[in-house]
């Protein structure tokens, strides 16, 4: 019997997996490597973009535990973001209220090329926008729309002192937009590469200039660093300028380009009065931490730059097979172009590029922009034998890690020798990968997180739709080791990570009530009141465990527009109060300690209607409730309110 038992255990171990490379967590110490015991905390923060969720999710590494979803471009009923009066302006655009986007590439602010943990930026791909999130409150503080752009994909990467965050357009479009035949695309459409300046103290964004490039598709980008600081590199595809059946027609050229942009040169040109101001409509939305309110301002003008007007600022590096990822190693010397239709990686050398530019060794031009000779700028080729290289990140030991979408693997190779050191399968169809700080001069090469597009058979099935999957590899040794996989929320398009100690100590615990400058805040429950202004009723309400002040309100009429301005008087970490009222057409609110938020309710029926706290706040949470009496529109009942009477 015992023998049979042993045999069953052995056979069940290998069950369902014939891949000799994966023995499961029990085959090694993998489980120990990701186990963060109760009460212990993770070593790294990882910020995974939500792709089509429009948001940013915060995870711990190595545990893969999700800590928070930060609403950015999408309405978020959990907190009322995009529903509350204070946050609705954040989603304003020149197209009106756009409560969704496709959030792709987060990037953490840097100083001297190292992560400084002040802000994280992320792009909205669909209705072009860039957002800035404060990393002490983990709240979206600013969103700027990008005019003349469409498909803000090569974004939101930042220069090494956070001078600029870029927003390169994936789709070229008429600039300015106009009604014209689509098949006249070639030669008429433009690709805008937008440089958004970041004010060093508060992080406020402003479009400094837009480079109007030929009508290619600008796919991904990366700043130079070290010696190449001052340059920005953008991969392109569709240099064919096709406008239909793109999968075939934009994949005809053997080589597309990496556009190398000397932004310092253009900045100088602009600072000296260069560039052309062009009428444009775009929204600039700023959330103020003191007033707890967002405001949206429409801007009317943008400065554009014709690259031909700034000689020596823009060059094209021929790069094979529709390059997707564009990554620069921590030294700033190597620019890696991942030809998504090839098996190999093309690595350009920054020094060689500069030498070729100085010697004016050009191989023709495209729309007046010099094309450098492929052989003159090539540092080397990584012959990997994988298929569909997409993205590369780096550790601090001179290794690079590239994802291969088609062959579903991560390949580790050496910078300089271009030899492949190791390769490990992913499950499945991996897009981006992330090493904390892997996008900076100082990576923390302990883990790599691979973000996969297809999840099937990794977890219990949940119908045709599943969350995507991310996988954690230990890269501290010569060989990579898959140590964990976990489902993510939305599409984990790309991620940024940093050591926990960079953010945890400065994470805000409460908003100070005495710093609350919201115009409708009540700093003391005795100030709670109800005011009528025509058919608008403003309720100044405060909350504390476990009651609302006031909790009985009369004199509201059908057809009124009732504003609940709620101030949470707690000054204790992690004690929000919620608010919701029956029949509300928006969402509830979640009000943080010391914060004020406003929600609109338009009562449609006569009656006495309850409201209550939605966040389980105390032993008497269920009792945290109140009533609003709603009278007919023509009623003459006076406004009155009370608590404890």
């Amino acid at each position: 019997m015992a023998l049979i038992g042993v045999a069953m255990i052995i056979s069940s171990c290998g069950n369902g997996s014939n891949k000799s490379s994966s023995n499961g967590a029990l085959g090694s110490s993998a489980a120990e490597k990701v186990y963060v015991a109760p009460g212990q905390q993770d070593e790294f923060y990882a910020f995974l973009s939500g792709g089509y969720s429009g948001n940013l999710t915060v995870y711990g590494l190595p545990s893969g535990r999700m800590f928070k979803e930060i609403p950015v471009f999408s309405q978020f009923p959990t907190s009322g973001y995009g529903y509350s009066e204070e946050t609705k302006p954040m989603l304003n655009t020149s197209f009106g209220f756009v409560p969704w986007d496709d959030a792709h590439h987060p990037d953490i602010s840097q100083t001297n090329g190292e992560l400084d943990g002040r802000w994280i930026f992320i792009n909205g791909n669909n209705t072009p926008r860039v957002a800035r999130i404060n990393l002490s409150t983990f709240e979206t503080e600013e969103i700027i729309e990008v005019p003349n752009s469409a498909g803000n994909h090569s974004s939101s990467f930042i220069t090494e002192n956070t001078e600029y965050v870029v927003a390169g357009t994936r789709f070229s479009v008429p600039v300015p937009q106009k009604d014209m035949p689509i098949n006249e695309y070639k030669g008429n459409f433009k690709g805008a590469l937008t440089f958004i300046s970041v004010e060093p103290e508060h992080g406020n964004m402003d479009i400094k200039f837009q480079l109007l490039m030929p009508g290619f598709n600008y796919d991904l980008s990366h700043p130079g660093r070290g010696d190449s600081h001052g340059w920005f590199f953008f991969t392109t595809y569709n240099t064919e300028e096709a406008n239909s059946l793109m999968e075939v027609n934009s994949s005809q050229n053997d080589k597309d380009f990496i556009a190398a942009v000397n932004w310092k040169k253009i900045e100088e040109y602009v600072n000296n009065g260069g560039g052309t101001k062009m009428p444009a409509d775009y929204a600039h939305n700023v959330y103020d931490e003191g007033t707890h309110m967002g405001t949206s301002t429409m801007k009317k003008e943008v400065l554009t730059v014709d690259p031909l007007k700034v000689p020596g600022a823009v060059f094209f590096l021929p790069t094979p097979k529709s390059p997707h990822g564009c990554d620069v190693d921590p030294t700033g010397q190597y620019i890696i172009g991942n030809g998504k239709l090839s098996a190999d990686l093309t690595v350009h050398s920054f020094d060689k590029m500069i030498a070729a530019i100085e010697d004016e060794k050009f191989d023709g031009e495209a729309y007046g922009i010099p094309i450098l000779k492929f052989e003159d700028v090539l540092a080397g080729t990584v012959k990997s034998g994988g298929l569909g290289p997409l993205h590369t990140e780096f550790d601090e030991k001179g290794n690079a890690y590239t994802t291969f979408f088609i062959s579903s693997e991560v390949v580790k190779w050496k910078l300089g020798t271009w030899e492949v050191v190791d390769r490990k399968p992913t499950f499945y169809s991996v897009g981006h990968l992330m090493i904390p700080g892997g996008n900076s001069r100082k990576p923390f090469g302990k883990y790599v997180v691979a973000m996969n597009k297809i999840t099937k058979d990794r977890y219990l099935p949940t119908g045709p739709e599943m969350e995507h999957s991310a996988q954690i590899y230990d890269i501290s040794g010569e060989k990579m080791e898959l140590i964990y996989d976990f489902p993510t929320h939305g599409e984990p398009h790309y991620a940024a990570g940093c050591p926990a100690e960079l953010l945890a100590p400065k994470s805000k615990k409460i908003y100070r009530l005495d710093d609350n400058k919201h115009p409708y805040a009540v700093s003391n429950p005795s100030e709670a009141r109800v005011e009528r202004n025509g058919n608008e009723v403003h309720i100044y309400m405060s909350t504390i465990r476990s009651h609302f002040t006031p909790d009985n309100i009369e004199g509201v009429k059908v057809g009124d527009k009732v504003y609940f301005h709620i101030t949470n008087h707690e000054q204790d970490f992690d004690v929000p109060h919620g608010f919701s009222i029956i029949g509300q057409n928006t969402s509830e609110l979640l009000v943080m300690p010391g914060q004020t938020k406003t929600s609109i309710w338009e009562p449609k029926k006569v009656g006495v209607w309850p409201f209550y706290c939605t966040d389980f706040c105390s032993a008497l949470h269920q009792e945290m409730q109140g009533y609003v009496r709603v009278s007919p529109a023509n009623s003459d009942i006076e406004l009155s309110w009370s608590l404890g009477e």
Partner: protein
Amino acid sequence: MKKASLAMIVGSALLMGLFVFPLWNIELGAPQYPEPLGINIYINGLQGQSEFDIQNIDGLNHYIGMKTLPKPEDMWEFSVFPLVIGGMVGFGVLFGALGYFDKISYHWFFGWFILMTILGVLGMYDFNAWLLDYGTNLDPKAIMKLVNPDGTPMSYKPPLLGHQKMLNFDAYSYPRLGAYFMFLGMCLTLIAGYLGWKYKKASNLNYST
């Protein structure tokens, strides 16, 4: 006698520490408060160990009907204690100075020490009485009414000194830096008296030889 007088001056002056540092501290820890809530007790009022601790302790205590923690104007102690301590410091320094110029004998030093000890004991008694009232004089409309196994109402009086388990909280009550200054200062004044006595004895011996 000069050494004794200097010790008397320094010792009584050390009581000034009470104007800067807390006398006592009561700390309340629970699993959901990994950073414990705490009250620092000064001779002129209470302060939270962290900025919002007083508000948060009051918030928790209202469930069991405890009064809110007193503001300085709510208790006579907070205006009288500084006067008493200030007065005792003044007298102590004065006695020391007079001793220095041989105007008074060491008996005054002992006298000061005994008076200060009596005042200290009275202070502790008063403090304990306040804790007792705070922990047992509960609002009859309190949300939670907890009783001991014998049916008597539960007391939430924090310990005068040491640790006590109170519901889900661990309460710790210990002297803080101001109290240590006072303790050290009082020891010094006692030593001052002893030195004065020794000096007196030695000089008496000298006269007799």
